Every structure is written in C-alpha cells, then in structure tokens.
C-alpha cells in the first residue's frame, strides 16, 4: 500500500535528518515505527505526508508515485496524518474541525459528522467547545476523528498516546486496533514501543535517520537488544 524507498530529507538548518530510510506497509497492516528521541520518526511521517519535501528517494501510495506532490495533493490521494503536536485547529470548535476535515460535498457533511459523534460520544458532548479547551485524550480523539472524516487509504499516526493518562492510552490503542480490524493500513510512531510492537504485524527501528532493525512486531518486542533500548535496562 505504502512504499517508502531511500528517503533522504531534512530541514533548512539540518539538511540530512533522514539518511536513506525505507519502510513499507501492506494492505490492512498495522506497522509500528520506534526509535530514540530525535531519530527522525516525526520527520519521516512529515515527508511521507508531504509537509517536508524529500531530497532523494520515493514515496508511493497504492503504486502511484506521490514524491513530487504537496501535502494537500497527497491528502486528496488518500493520506491522513495525525501529527504529534498541534493536530487540531485550536481556535475552531470541535464541530468546525470535523467539518473542515470532510472532503466531500457539504450536503453529506452533517451526516458523516453525526456518524463520527455516534462513534466518539465525547466529541458530540464537546461539539461547541473550542478545540484548544479539550483535554489531551479528547484532543487526540478529535484528531483521529478528523483523519477518519477523510476516509483515508492510509493512516499515519505520530505518537497518538503522548501525554495521555494510562486509561486514555488504553482507549486510544483500542481505537487504533479497531481501525486496523476494519482494514485500514496504519503506520504508527509510538513511545510505548513494546506494547505497540506486540500488537503490530511488523515494526521498524529507526536510529539517527537510518533503518536499524525491522521484523515482525512481537519478534521485535521480544528481542533483547530492543528491550534494552526501550526499557532503559
């Protein structure tokens, strides 16, 4: 579904954050990307979504090369990206956030949004609230719901449980697994590395902008090297 090949990318002030990264996600797969702070995980998702341009390498979605397309165009092609930070429009209401996420004709928007309210009742409760007044867990649910309003072909999640309580983390994992069960391919960066790898079909370890290891999710989670890296042992 998603093929990323030899990506080299960075920022004006640091041109080579990614030094030739390759990952792929097959239809229906949940794939987890882990790595130490500053490894370039967020940068990778930004390049895949089109927010940061690639210097070298390719990004393909469903066989089509989207490497030269901007973020808006890639969103139309079927990518949805839940960023690590600032992933909702804080000065807009919950209802407005969902409305803007809807890509189709406005006639059907209310219906889709009502469906989303049914799925995540907390959003219905808070529909008139400004998004910046939501709690961390509510905000992540809104960000996920916005991504889902676009009926994506491929979902990119950057640390969806960052800063959440254990209970909210649990709930968010349930949401992600539910989407996986519906057949949505997902590439997820997660700080709860071992828990995430346990439930993923495959995983990648990224270290300072390069692929360091890859394999089946549970296999990686059981690997002593990886356990040492992520359990701080």
């Amino acid at each position, binding site marked *: 579904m998603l093929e990323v090949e030899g990506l080299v990318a960075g920022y004006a002030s640091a041109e080579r954050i990614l030094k030739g990264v390759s990952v792929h996600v097959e239809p229906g797969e949940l794939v987890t990307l882990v790595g130490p702070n500053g490894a370039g995980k967020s940068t990778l998702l930004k390049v895949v979504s089109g927010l940061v341009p690639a210097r070298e390498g390719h990004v393909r979605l469903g066989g089509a090369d989207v490497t030269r397309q901007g*973020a*808006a165009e890639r969103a139309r092609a079927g990518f949805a990206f839940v960023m690590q930070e600032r992933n909702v*429009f804080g000065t807009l209401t919950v209802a407005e956030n969902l409305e803007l996420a809807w890509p189709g004709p406005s006639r059907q928007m209310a219906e889709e949004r009502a469906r989303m309210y049914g799925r995540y009742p907390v959003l219905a409760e808070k529909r008139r609230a400004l998004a910046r007044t939501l709690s961390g867990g509510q905000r992540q649910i809104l960000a996920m719901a916005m991504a889902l309003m676009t009926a994506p072909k491929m979902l990119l999640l950057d640390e969806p449980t960052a800063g959440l309580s254990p209970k909210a983390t649990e709930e968010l994992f349930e949401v992600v697994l539910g989407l996986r069960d519906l057949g949505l391919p997902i590439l997820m960066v997660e700080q709860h590395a071992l828990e995430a790898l346990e439930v993923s079909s495959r995983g990648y370890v990224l270290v300072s902008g390069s692929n360091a290891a890859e394999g089946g999710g549970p296999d990686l989670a059981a690997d002593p090297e990886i356990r040492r890296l992520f359990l701080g042992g």
Partner: protein
Amino acid sequence: MTDIIQAVINGVLTGALIAIPAMGLTAIFAVLRYVNFAIGPLATCGAFAAWVLNFRYGWPVLPAMAGSFVTVAAIGLAVEQAALARLRPSGALTVAIASIAVGIILENVLRFSFGNDLRAFDLPLMRDWRFWGLRVGPQQLQTAGIAVAMMAGVFAFLRFTRYGKAMRAVADNPDLARLFRMEPGRIAMATVALGTGLTGVGGALLGLDSAIDPMSGSRLLLPVFAAAVLGGLGSIPGAVAGAILIGIGEELSLLVIPATYRSAIGFLTILLVLSFRPGGLFGERAA
C-alpha cells in the same frame, strides 16, 4: 455630562470607521503574519476610487463603496504579488518595512494624479439631528451603518461559510490545513484581497464623513494600528472592540487636550499595550 455623552457617541461613530481597516490589518496579520503599514495609503486609494465613481461618474454611495472595495483589493493583490510576497523569506519585519515603502509610493501616485486639493463627495446636504442637547449627523449615521453592516458581513463570512472557516484554519495552523486539502497560499491571497478591500472601503467611508486628500488615509494609520494592537493583532472581534475604544478615547481626549494632540491617544495605547499586555485586551496570541 452632555459633553461626555456627545463625545462617546462621536467616538462610537468614529470607531466604527476605524474598525473596517483595522479588521483588514488584523486579518492580514492573522494569516500572513506581517503588519501591512501600506493600509494608510490603501485607504486613501479607496477614498479616491469611491470619489471618482461618485463625483465623476455619478454612482450612488453603495455601488461606489463596492467599486472602492474591488479597486483596492486589486491594488493590494498586485502589491502583494509584485513586492511583499517575494520578501516573505526575509521575515515579517522586512515585509512590514517594505509595506511602508509601498505606502509612500501609492501616496505619491495619488498626489501626482489628483493634486493636493481637498475633495468632497457629491452628497445631499442634511441637517444634524438634535435631541436632549445632543447632535448626530445623518451622514455620520449612514457611514457608521455601512460600517456595521460590513462588520456583520465579515463576521458571518468567517463564522458560517466554509471558505471563511478555512481562512481561520489557515490562520490557526497552515501545516494542518494542508493536511486537510486546503491551499494556504491561495487562502493567503484571498485574505489580502479581503483585508485591503476592507481598508479601501474604510477610507471611502472616512471620505464620505469629511473630505479627502492624498494624506487622509495616512492620518488613519495610527488609530487603526492602535485599534488592532489593542484588540490583539490577529483577532477580528478584538480589532472592532479596539477601534470603538480608540474612537471613544480620541473623542473624550478632545474635552481635555487640544485637537492637535488627538493622535497621542493612538500612540499612548500602542505604547501601553505593547509594554504591559502585548497580546492585546482579547488576544490569545501574545507576541
């Protein structure tokens, strides 16, 4: 007491006029993150556009206002594309300074084309209304009415239309907007058109109220900027509230200080707000 009430009434009417360009200034800041100091001369362009349409071609007030909006929006877009947009990589300060230069050019083009004479619109003369010792000009009320209608229109546009919401979304977070298929570049241009168009109408309304010359918009710059700063740069409701407060402050100041010092209110406001409350009275985006 009557003096004070009269000053407050005049202040609200003046404030309504200041509010229109202030909304334009603050909208452009919200999306493009620079202060457009060309809005003074752009307001003058709006005044002259409306005057030409009204005085030379006999258009009634409302169509002349619409013509002024379109003309100044076109000038604003041309300036943005030809000059300001190219400087954006060098930072907001560079763009703001360039906008001052653009303003000087516009002002001199107007002076060259129309001369320095005072010009008045072709309007029926109407007697002031008097009641309880107070005085209100029908012309003032009409301009304030147009201003209020425009404010309501802008609010409704931003709050209820999809495009207006997209503008607010881009102002809030351009990267996130791109992830939801919006094109921040295009929306920025629409914001420039809206902001400068409003500025043009503001200048034209000012002209209806008094007379115009190539400097009349520039005299507006200080209270307009003060209003936007007071309300919190980037906040549209803030700009309106700030404009009303500045208008009232200016008129009240006339009771105690000579009229030549009236602009001190704007200066003082900018100084105090930036020193003690840089986010403005209502601003969330403290600088």
